[in-house]
């Protein structure tokens, strides 16, 4: 399988310079196939809910590669309920890049981005996104919509793409504290963003449709919290990719009927599992490097190690009021643990790690994410003072050149041994 993927990646690399349209069609076909295969006959023992999720995210990525001028390029924390209500597909750097790397097809796009002057210190998810657009493989989106957090990269890559393709861009400026004034400021901008979308797409937002999307958001949030409650005492034979796919579900895919269904299935699937733990239970901070082969060997489907949750999926599990959609979306943005100081994010991570009965925390320093990197030593001290051993692991979520395969694996394996020892598993 690995060789097949590598061969596919090499083919993409060779074709992309001259035939971006062919590459686009190939990627769409492969993702469609993979999505269907995951749903019908997954190669790994996935929960039914996760089979549903994999198919759902693959279809979303395929639609992102669809007709020119039909999608909206968004940042990961932008609330997409309005887009869903208007039938506009949201494309997000983290999802797109994750899928491209999964198909071993990202190398050419990284190369193009760096050749076009994008600094190699920039977050690789965004370098791949820029490369994919500037190589002509990702079709021109109709709109760009982004929040100013969670990272500096938002201000840079989206502005660059907007200028490159002359795409209308709306930026939601997010202050760092959830005060009443700030809540109003963000809610007003979200309303303005809706007008902006209507103006540039000619589509009209129906208030009832948006209300329905908010209802599904609320259902999904409640189900995910129920899942986490059940997860606190249960083991899943799992993989990094599932946790990564959940990031799409807990962020940009919120507000879809399918997402509410997925979250509900997930809660039910996990509730049916027997209680008990096996090996070390890990809480993960930041993205998961599911391209790193040696790390996958240590974490994916081991029958032992369990990634019980991640901070990206627990950043803002807040109730929403379907009758106050803009206020609700604004509150989710402002209260997200990724908005504001590093302390807020670390405290939130600790709360969930504790709730999920984690044995240890992996704090993943994704190359290019300065907020995460800067907080690494503070986080380690904070977690360990509260009894949670912490591994600060340097690497890259999706740039294979920076993923530091073997070196990261040695550190992680030693950490797992440490956890197994401290929890008495090795006796």
């Amino acid at each position, binding site marked *: 399988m690995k060789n097949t993927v590598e061969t596919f990646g090499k083919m993409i690399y060779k074709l992309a310079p001259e035939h971006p349209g062919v590459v686009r069609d190939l990627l769409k076909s492969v993702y469609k196939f993979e999505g269907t295969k995951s749903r019908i006959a997954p190669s790994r023992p996935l929960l039914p809910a996760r089979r549903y999720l994999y198919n759902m995210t693959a279809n979303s990525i395929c639609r992102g590669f669809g007709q020119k001028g039909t999608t909206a390029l968004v940042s990961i924390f932008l609330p997409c309920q309005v887009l869903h209500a208007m039938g506009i597909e949201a494309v997000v750097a983290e999802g797109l890049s994750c899928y491209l790397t999964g198909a071993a097809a990202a190398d050419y796009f990284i190369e193009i981005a760096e050749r076009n002057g994008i600094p190699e210190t920039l977050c690789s998810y965004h370098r791949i996104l820029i490369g994919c657009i500037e190589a002509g493989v990702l079709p021109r989106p109709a709109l760009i919509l982004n929040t100013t957090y969670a990272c500096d990269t938002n201000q840079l890559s989206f502005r660059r793409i907007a200028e490159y393709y002359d795409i209308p861009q709306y930026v939601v400026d997010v*202050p760092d504290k959830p005060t009443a004034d700030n809540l109003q400021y963000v809610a007003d901008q979200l309303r303005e963003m809706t007008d902006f979308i209507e103006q540039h797409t000619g589509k009209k937002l129906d208030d009832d449709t948006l209300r329905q999307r908010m209802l599904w958001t609320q259902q999904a949030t409640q189900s995910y919290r129920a899942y986490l409650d059940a997860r606190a005492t249960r083991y899943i034979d799992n993989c990094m990719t599932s946790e990564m796919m959940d990031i799409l579900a807990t962020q940009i895919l919120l507000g879809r009927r399918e997402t509410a269904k997925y979250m509900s299935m997930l809660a039910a699937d996990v509730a049916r599992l027997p209680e008990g733990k096996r090996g070390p239970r890990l809480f993960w901070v930041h993205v998961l490097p599911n391209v790193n082969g040696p790390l996958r060997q240590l974490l994916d489907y081991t029958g032992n190690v369990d990634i019980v949750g991640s901070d990206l999926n627990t950043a803002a599990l807040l109730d929403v009021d379907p009758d106050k959609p803009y206020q609700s979306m604004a509150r989710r943005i402002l209260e997200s643990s990724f908005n504001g100081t*590093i302390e807020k994010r670390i405290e939130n991570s600790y709360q969930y790690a504790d709730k999920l009965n984690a044995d240890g925390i992996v704090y993943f320093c994704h190359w290019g994410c300065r907020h995460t990197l800067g907080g690494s030593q*503070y986080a380690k001290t904070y977690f360990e003072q509260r009894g949670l051993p912490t591994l600060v692991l340097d690497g890259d979520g999706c740039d294979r050149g920076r993923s530091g395969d073997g070196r990261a694996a040695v550190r992680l394996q030693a950490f797992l041994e440490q956890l197994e020892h401290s929890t008495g598993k090795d006796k």
Partner: protein
Amino acid sequence: MIAWNCKYTPVELLCALGAEPFFWNSAADDFGYAQRVAHGSICCHVQAFLQNCRDKGLREVVLVNCCDSMRSAYGILKNNGDLDFIFLLDLPHKVGGCAQNIFKKELFRLVEEYSKFKNTVFDSDKFKAAFPVTPKLLPQENFIAVAGGRVSDSLLAEISAQLPLPVADLTCAGTRLLGAPTQDIDDFDALMDWYASELLSLTPCMRMHDVSGRKALYNLPGLSGIIYNTVKFCDYYAFEYDALRKETKLPILKIESDYLPVTGGQLSTRLGAFAENAAFAQQAGDKKKGSAGGYVAGIDSGSTTTNMVVLAADGSFIGGVTVRTGPRAAVGANKAFAAVKEQLGIDKEQLDYLVATGYGRNAVLSADQTVTEITCHARGARHQNSDVRTVIDIGGQDSKVIGLADDGSVSNFVMNDKCAAGTGRFLELMATTLEMDVAEMSSVGLGWKDDLTISSICTVFAESEVVSLIADNRTAADIVHGLHKSVALKTAALVGRAGGVPAYMITGGVAHNAGVVQELEKKLREKLIIPDEPELCGALGAALIALDKVK
């Protein structure tokens, strides 16, 4: 004393509250402490700030959440307990009415917290007095701007010392041209409204949403050239540079700084080349000699080899030599003089003019003039082929890409000299690991079968990757091919950043490596021009410049 470091900091407000604000923008001696409490890959200015907070014993700090690194630094400084007062100002990304109101509330919050800390109240007279009577103005005559990301005080002084025109600091931290209130505003709320508006009206930094106001910076009267700085691990300004280099007609030089003490060689090569090639170049220091011996020469003192070319007074090529530089550039130069005498029969005293170039150029004491290798490579390449528009020089210690204007002058250049990846040294190291010599490596990779990719960016880690591949029984040909691809990839990226266009000429010792050349041609989709003696290109350019002096 309260330290601040961002131009959006309400400095005048702090004065009104009885504080003594001072702009803290120094380099640090090292980052030992900063990397212990944070991480080595966050913005180097922030690392320096963290380090200096501890080393210099700062007690009060006002920060602005201008970037992710600074947001993290706030958490670290707040929790390490060394400061008496710390405040993080939330700066909006937009500047309209609502954003201004949000920012005004932040100013109120600062007043509340600092007043409580110092037990003071806002003093409107102090506030007014804090604005300079005469606002800082830009130079009235022709000047060079240092633009982009902030530069440390010491780096700005170094740049100013090396350039032939006055230097103005137009970096993100240097453009705080704030005017005093033009009328009395008694109401505090209204005064803060005005103040918030003034602060948000400063020339926007790249962190702001609307950066169109920055264009005015590059159209200032008298602006004659731009030194464009990016701070290591700050991505904001690389984006602006990429757009600016394509748009501006002014000479522009890109540098990267790291807020550590300025090291001479790398910076002076860049600044020297910039000054040599820009329209404001001065001819000071040049001297013209007579024609006693009938020869001129150029000597290129590189990190690995020293090359020398001798021309007759009529411009005809007499010959060139290459010797190992060894541990000292001066020794390498003497070896080159000895080789010229032995192989070409020409004594040093017979040289009417000698131009030295390369990293060791200043160590060649008998040189009549020193010129950077950028200018010399450009001159040498153009002399050998008038079609050349881009020179790719992969040397032992660095690699550089030089863009040539229609008249053969340098239009742009980029260098990679802080990392061995993609240089001749990288290949030498890998050849040692593979137990073969560099010449052998050149051809071995051509017989590859399995298309391996060496994905590690760092030379040291790439070496361990090669060791793993050897252990994995991969053939030497496949591994070498992977290494050649890696060098080609790095070099092609450099070409892209320089805005390089065909025809390309490759110079330097690596031009002999058929594997690298082949892979680079694939990446650039263009044949490379390889001169007969690619390692002599810089020395030839130096000799041609020497020839100009005696003609």
